[in-house]
C-alpha cells in the first residue's frame, strides 16, 4: 500500500539514510567526547570519527581532508566563503561577481558585502537559467576578487558551466567559489578538475543529518584563506571556531561515502524516473519545463501549468509533498525570483511545481504522482475561466481586467 503523502521535495531536504543513522548512533551515545579534547581517550575517539569523516567527504569531491572546514550547513558555508574572502583579500580588490538565480544565502550575503562598501555584479541568466560566459568575462575587473556561481540550481536543477566559469575567474586572477548544495553527492563534483577554490555544501541534501555542512577551502594552487566569521577556540585551522558536531560530521561522512559509491546508479535510475514524470506531465497542454533540460541535475524537474493558479494547484496535489514557484503559501505574494529571472511571467511562475526525487523514490510513487497531478490540473482547468477563454481562442492580453 502506497503511503501518502508522497515526499517529492528532496531539494528542500532528504530523509536520513538508515545506514547514516547507524554510523551516527555510537557518537550520539557512548562516544560523546569533544573532538578538541587532546588529553583523554574520549576526545581521541571523537577526533578519530571526525578525521575518518573528513576523509570520506574529501573523497567525494576529490580534495585533501585538510581542505574541509566544517560548518553548520551550506548557508554558513556560503557566508563564510564570501565574507571570509572579502575580508581576507580586501587589499587586492572589493568586487564580487555572482548571478541573479543564486540561493538567498549567497544573494543576501552579497547584499551585506555591498553595505560594507564592496561592489557586486549580479549576472542575469538566459531562459535556460544559464549565465553567459561572455558577460562574465566582460564583468571581470582588476578589482574582482571572487566569482561565486552555484553548481546546480535548487529550483530548476540547472547546472552551470562550472569549469568554464572557473577558468575565466582564474584568468583574471580571481578566486572561484561555488554553492554546491544541490550538486554534491548527486553528480560528480571534482574540485581539482572543475577548478573550484571554495565550495559550500551540506549533509541533509544527500541523505545525511541536518545542521552540518562544510566549506571546501583550497590549500594549494592557490592557497586560499578566509577570515573567520566565528571567533573562539580556533577550530578548523582557525577558520571556524566552535565545538565540532561530531555525530553530525560522522553522518555527513557516511552520507558522502554512500553518495560516492551509489551516485552513478542513483542518477541513472532517477533520471529515468524524472524523465518519465516529465514526459507524462508534458502531455498536458500548455505545460512547460522551466530551465535547461540539457544541463540539469538528474533528479529534478520544474514544470509550469498555464491557466492554473499556483495555490489552488498546491491544494489539488495534496497527496504530494512538492514545492511551488508561488510564494502565496508563505508570507510574501511574490512568485519565485529564480523563475522570474528565467523570464517567466508572474502567472506562469505562480503555477509551477518543483519535483525533487530521491534515492528512496519508487516507480509506484511516480506513477501515482503522474495521475494525481494530471487529475488536479485537468480539474482546475475545467474550473478556470482563463482556460475556457484560451480554448475559445481569446487572447487574454487583450482583455481589460477589473483590477483589484
Amino acid at each position, binding site marked *: 500500500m502506497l503511503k501518502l503523502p508522497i515526499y517529492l521535495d528532496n531539494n528542500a531536504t532528504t530523509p536520513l539514510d538508515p545506514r547514516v543513522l547507524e554510523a551516527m548512533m555510537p557518537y550520539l551515545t557512548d562516544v560523546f567526547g569533544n573532538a578538541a579534547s587532546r588529553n583523554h581517550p574520549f576526545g581521541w575517539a571523537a577526533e578519530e570519527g571526525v578525521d575518518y569523516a573528513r576523509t570520506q567527504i574529501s573523497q567525494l569531491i576529490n580534495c585533501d581532508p585538510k581542505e574541509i572546514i566544517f560548518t553548520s550547513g551550506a548557508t554558513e558555508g556560503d557566508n563564510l566563503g564570501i565574507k571570509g574572502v572579502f575580508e581576507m583579500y580586501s587589499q587586492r580588490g572589493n568586487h564580487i561577481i555572482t548571478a541573479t538565480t543564486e540561493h538567498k544565502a549567497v544573494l543576501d550575503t552579497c547584499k551585506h558585502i555591498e553595505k560594507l562598501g564592496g561592489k557586486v555584479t549580479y549576472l542575469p541568466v538566459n531562459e535556460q537559467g544559464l549565465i553567459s560566459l561572455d558577460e562574465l568575462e566582460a564583468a571581470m575587473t582588476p578589482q574582482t576578487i571572487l566569482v561565486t556561481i552555484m553548481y546546480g540550481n535548487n529550483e530548476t536543477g540547472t547546472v552551470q558551466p562550472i569549469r568554464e566559469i572557473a577558468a575565466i575567474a582564474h584568468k583574471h586572477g580571481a578566486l572561484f567559489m561555488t554553492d554546491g548544495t544541490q550538486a554534491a553527492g548527486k553528480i560528480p563534483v571534482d574540485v581539482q578538475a572543475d577548478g573550484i577554490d571554495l565550495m559550500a555544501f551540506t549533509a541533509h541534501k544527500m541523505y545525511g543529518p541536518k545542521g552540518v555542512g562544510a566549506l571546501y577551502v583550497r590549500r594549494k594552487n592557490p592557497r586560499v584563506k578566509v577570515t573567520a566569521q566565528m571567533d573562539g577556540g580556533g577550530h578548523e585551522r582557525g577558520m571556524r571556531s566552535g565545538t565540532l558536531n561530531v555525530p553530525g560530521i560522522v553522518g555527513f561522512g557516511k552520507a558522502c561515502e554512500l553518495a560516492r559509491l551509489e551516485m552513478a546508479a542513483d542518477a541513472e535510475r532517477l533520471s529515468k524516473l524524472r524523465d518519465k514524470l516529465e514526459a507524462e506531465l508534458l502531455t498536458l497542454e500548455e505545460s512547460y519545463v522551466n530551465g535547461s533540460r540539457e544541463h540539469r541535475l538528474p533528479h529534478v524537474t520544474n514544470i509550469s501549468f498555464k*491557466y*492554473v*493558479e*499556483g*495555490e*489552488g494547484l498546491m*491544494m*489539488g496535489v495534496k497527496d504530494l509533498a512538492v514545492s511551488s514557484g*508561488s510564494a*502565496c*503559501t508563505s508570507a510574501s*505574494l511574490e512568485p519565485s525570483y529564480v523563475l522570474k529571472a528565467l523570464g517567466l*511571467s*508572474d*502567472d506562469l511562475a*505562480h503555477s509551477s511545481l518543483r519535483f525533487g526525487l530521491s534515492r528512496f523514490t519508487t516507480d509506484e510513487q511516480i506513477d501515482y504522482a503522474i495521475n494525481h497531478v494530471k487529475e488536479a490540473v485537468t480539474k482546475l482547468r*475545467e*474550473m*478556470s*475561466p*482563463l*482556460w*475556457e477563454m484560451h480554448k475559445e481562442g481569446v487572447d*487574454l492580453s487583450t482583455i481589460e*481586467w*477589473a*483590477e*483589484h
Partner: protein
Amino acid sequence: MAYSDKVIDHYSNPRNVGTLDKSKKTVGTGLVGAPECGDVMRLQIEVDETTNTITDAKFKTFGCGSAIASSSLATEWLKGKTVDEALAIDNMEIVEELALPPVKIHCSVLAEDAIKMAINDYRVKNGLPALELEKSHH
C-alpha cells in the same frame, strides 16, 4: 496554511461549475480579478424576468482554494434569490460561512463584486440603468 473544512469541501466538490449562454438577455455575467493578481472569477446568473428571481447560477474561477470556495458558495446562495436579495449579499457573510482567514478576505470581496457585476450586466442588457455600486474596500 490550514483551510477550513468548508473551504476544502467546496474546493473538492465545487457546486455549479460551468458556463451560461452570455448572449441570452436573461443571463448576466460578472468577470472580476486579473491573472497577474492570481485570481479571476467569473460568475453568471440566469434571471426569470417575470419573478425577478435567479433560477440558475454558474461560476468558473482561476485562483486559490478560498477563491474557488467563495464563488462556489456564492452560486449556491444566489439560486432562488430575487435580484434585490442577491444585491444584499455581503462579503463578510462569505467570510463567516467559510471561516476565511484575514489574508483570504479579498476572495470574498471578489465574489461580492462578481455578483454585483453580473446583476449590472443583466440590468443593462434589459434596458435598466447600471446600479452605482459602492467601491468595496480592499
